[in-house]
């Protein structure tokens, strides 16, 4: 997967946050159960994605994204909406 695709960029940020290889990330992976995310991770992750894509993620949206795949899909949708 290209690092320049939205999915690649989101996975790169997640990988850096949790100190894993991007290719190890699977869509069904849970931030809490599989990546052992703490509240600090969530805050840092959201800020890093907001910065990377120049979007704003409301807290209530962030709470709905529990897996890697959900986060990728959310960012894709958000970026498309913002571009309109």
């Amino acid at each position, binding site marked *: 997967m290209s690092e320049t695709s939205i999915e690649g960029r989101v996975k790169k940020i997640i990988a*850096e946050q949790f*100190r894993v*290889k991007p290719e190890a990330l699977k869509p069904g992976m849970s931030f809490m159960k599989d990546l052992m995310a703490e509240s*600090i991770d969530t*805050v*840092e992750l*959201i*800020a*890093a994605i*907001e*910065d990377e894509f120049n979007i*704003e993620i409301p807290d209530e949206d962030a709470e709905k994204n529990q897996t890697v795949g959900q986060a990728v899909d959310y960012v894709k949708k958000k970026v498309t909406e913002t571009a309109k």
Partner: protein
Amino acid sequence: MRLCIFEDGKFSNLYPLTYTRPVFDLRCGRTRLFEKIVRSFPGVETVFFTRNHLQPIFGDRSKSATNDMDALRGDDVLFVNGRILAWRGELKPSRDEVAALKGEDIAYVNAKRETISKFMSGSMDELLGRLKAELSPLRADVELVEYPWDLVRNNPKAIVDDFESFSGRGVFPKMNSKVEIYGDAGRVHIAETAEIHPFVVLDAHAGPIIIDENVKILPFSRIEGPCSIGAGSMIVRGNIREEVTIGPVCRIGGEVESSIVHGYSNKYHTGFLGHAYVGEWVNIGALTTNSDLKNDYSNVEVYVNGNLFDTGDTKVGSFIGDHTKLGIGCLLNTGTIVGVGCNLLGGEVLPKYIPSFAWFTRGRISRGSGFRRTVEAERRVMSRRGVEMSPSYVQMLQFTYDMTKEERENLIKRSKGRAIPEA
């Protein structure tokens, strides 16, 4: 005559403290630098000049003309460098038209109305440059603050100076019999509305103690002079050792030595703060401690404008910018700089330099929650003390965030490089 207090180009030597305030708004002793200068010229109208992003905030607070060139017209003006330490009775400028220099820096310029009109155009820097070039030079025997540790080093002298400048000092509240003033009670000022609880020791043997209005000192605190505690502050079982200034509306406990807490900051709990300058709206968690002496007793080095600088001093602590939060158990190395709006978690010795609006968690620097969420959190922090974060204040923070972005991103990249194991 008018008085013009200006900021010269050396403000960056005093980062992170001067990201969010003019140099002359820094505290040394009970008073800030500009207050000492103004005090030297009673009744004289004062005009201030600072960086543009600080003008709305400082202008509002000081209620004085700020960055207004027109305010300099129509009268003789004494231009005074805002970095001057104006000791009581010692700032006596020449009455002649002169440019008084300390090294290459302007200490002060005394200029007649006609001379100012002749050279007035462009910015304050340009005006001062022309006056420096045209007027007779004079070697000024004054002290200019060069680096943050100069404020800490001069703090004891400044507290004594402020105490001596105080008219109507004395111990005004009715004191509980279990409060001990150890030493000369004439070296202690306690404002009428201050509240000193039983089992408090005020030790004035080594220097004066100033306790301002509405200060509350809770039991089992020991305050050693020279010391100044600002209005509305609270000492919670504090071991406040010598040479400490605590500004207004602070909550201070644990051990503090030879330090300045600018104001509106908290260090409630056990933990050591020494030879440090802490900005506003800082919170220091329980057991957080800073080193102010290296194990080999060599000079402390501090990052100044991106370079490690030998302070020439063996006792130098930390310099912490406004709105920074230090969690429980943070360990700050000798001569550490922490920027504005940082969030640091403890558990290990922190890096010696943390850029503004960065987080340090689990061994690495990150962007943390970003600017918007940081401002939201700080708005809540300020409102708890009854202070509203104005739109111009947010703009000032945004300016600081933007100007520190490149440095922050570079250090985040370097930090990631260290923290992530090779694949």
